[in-house]
């Protein structure tokens, strides 16, 4: 506004503007730093560890104070640990785990290959969605254990039967996850994509699929949980020595031998493996997808 200013107004303005803009950008940019390791330790790792320790303490005190004084009903934590240790020393432990995990993961991958195109088809073709959409969501609430008897009758006591049960459990979850992911793509992205020239297949590839990824990953996570549960149901009901002993058979063997420590061993292993696969594969995948999009809730 100074009337004595000799620089052309235009040029001065341009310089001002650049400086102003740089200032605004600096002021408004949110610094996103990852939490320090210590904080992660105290906020994320410590609470579950304390919770597990509490459960163990309660369990042990039930034995110590003779609230339950019958090892055939409730074995001591130390007894269960001994069984696990023994299985480890005999080299059987990893065998049990591997038998089940390899079945579970192979079945899951098969479910993935079938469910992904199915989910896309459902999302894209209205008629197909109207026809099998409700059935597919209904299947999610059907306990997969119900599929074991027919699968045994159709396929016999073999691995194919296990995979069939896994597929029937996991395919609906994954397909529904992808479907809801596609449904939740903001219409704005579709419009923006169309003005950029992403129509038809290009639109599906560049806009719809990446936009639906968070829902898809959530579906994968649930799909794994369903795969694992279905597999355990199949292993427990259809235990057959020739199939190799997985964790489900281990549980069933424990029951037949009235060995409560072995039953607990099997339950703990099933739980641990299910959690471990989720923590090692699916949770990091989900976190990555959400973090790059700024969708991680800061706690």
């Amino acid at each position, binding site marked *: 506004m100074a009337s004595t200013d000799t620089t052309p*107004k*235009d040029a001065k*303005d*341009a310089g001002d*503007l*650049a400086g*102003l*803009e*740089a200032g*605004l*950008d600096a002021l*408004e*940019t*949110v610094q*996103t730093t990852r939490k320090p390791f210590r904080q992660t330790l105290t906020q994320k790792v410590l609470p579950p560890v304390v919770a597990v320790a509490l459960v163990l303490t309660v369990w042990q005190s039930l034995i110590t104070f003779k609230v339950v004084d019958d090892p055939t009903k409730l074995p001591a934590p130390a007894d269960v640990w001994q069984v696990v240790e023994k299985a480890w020393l005999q080299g059987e432990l990893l065998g049990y785990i591997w038998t089940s995990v390899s079945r579970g993961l192979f079945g899951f991958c098969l479910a993935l290959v079938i469910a992904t195109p199915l989910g896309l088809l459902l999302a894209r073709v209205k008629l197909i969605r109207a026809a099998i959409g409700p059935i597919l969501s209904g299947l999610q609430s059907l306990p997969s254990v119900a599929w074991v008897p027919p699968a045994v009758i159709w396929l016999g006591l073999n691995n194919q039967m296990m995979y069939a049960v896994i597929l029937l459990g996991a395919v609906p979850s994954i397909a529904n996850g992808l479907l809801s992911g596609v449904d939740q793509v903001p219409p*704005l*992205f579709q*419009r*923006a994509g*169309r*003005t*950029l*020239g*992403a129509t038809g297949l*290009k639109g599906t590839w*560049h*806009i719809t699929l*990446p*936009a639906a*990824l968070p829902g898809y990953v959530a579906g994968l996570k649930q799909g794994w949980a369903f795969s694992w549960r279905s597999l355990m149901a199949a292993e427990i009901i259809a235990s057959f020595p020739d199939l190799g002993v997985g964790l489900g058979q281990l549980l069933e063997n424990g029951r037949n031998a009235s060995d409560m420590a072995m039953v607990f061993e099997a339950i703990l292993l099933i739980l641990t493996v299910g959690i471990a696969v989720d923590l090692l594969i699916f949770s990091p995948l989900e976190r990555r997808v959400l973090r*790059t*999009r*700024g*969708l991680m809730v800061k706690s």
Partner: protein
Amino acid sequence: MATTLAKAADGTQSATHAARIEHVSKSFAGPAGQQLVLDDISLDVAPGEFVTLLGASGCGKSTLLNLVAGLDKPTAGGITTDGRPALMFQEHALFPWLTAGKNIELALKLRGTPKNERRERAEQLLELVRLGGAHGKRVHELSGGMRQRVALARALAQESRLLLMDEPFAALDAITRDVLHDELTRIWRETGLSVLFVTHNVREAVRLAQRVVLLSSRPGRIARQWTVDIPHPRRIEDTAVAELSVEITEQLRGEIRRHGQH
């Protein structure tokens, strides 16, 4: 390229327009039957011209912009544009799974820019909106103003002759909006683009445009037009801007008042 020129007979500048809207009407199926949203709109945007469409809510200004963008079809009348126009929304509409630079590169890819040129071109466009070095930034790491600038760069990547803007700065704070007004004016003058800018903010309209088109509401009709010959650079607090804004606001209020009378 202009496609059809059915009514070129009465037009004096048949091929020399960035957008030509001829007798366009649009109605939607509403609860009370067909509802007329736009009524016989005719408007030309000359190459390199900056036009703002101003109106209260319900005047169908966004509907008109969607029609020009080709996202929707008019009920009657015709629209021709010089190539496919670029469109910027009130929300930045950047894709959060891509970095700022990759958003721009996607636009380049979709318009057929060869792979080896995309990166460099994206960097240039980011420089143009003064965000050089933001190529690898995630959308959520950018402030509201920066996001709109990346969105502008992405729209510019389409290299359309016409840029459509649907209240692109409405969600920003006053200071940032003011800076982006300067920025848009600078880029418009540097590139020679035609701009059709929709807003309900009178001062914004006057500050930016060469021509302000006021739409009446329900149905949207062109109520009046003003040519703005205030020299650039303009400031939102300039007296000339303020005076014209007062005049336009009076007219706009008159348009709105009519709806309360019957």
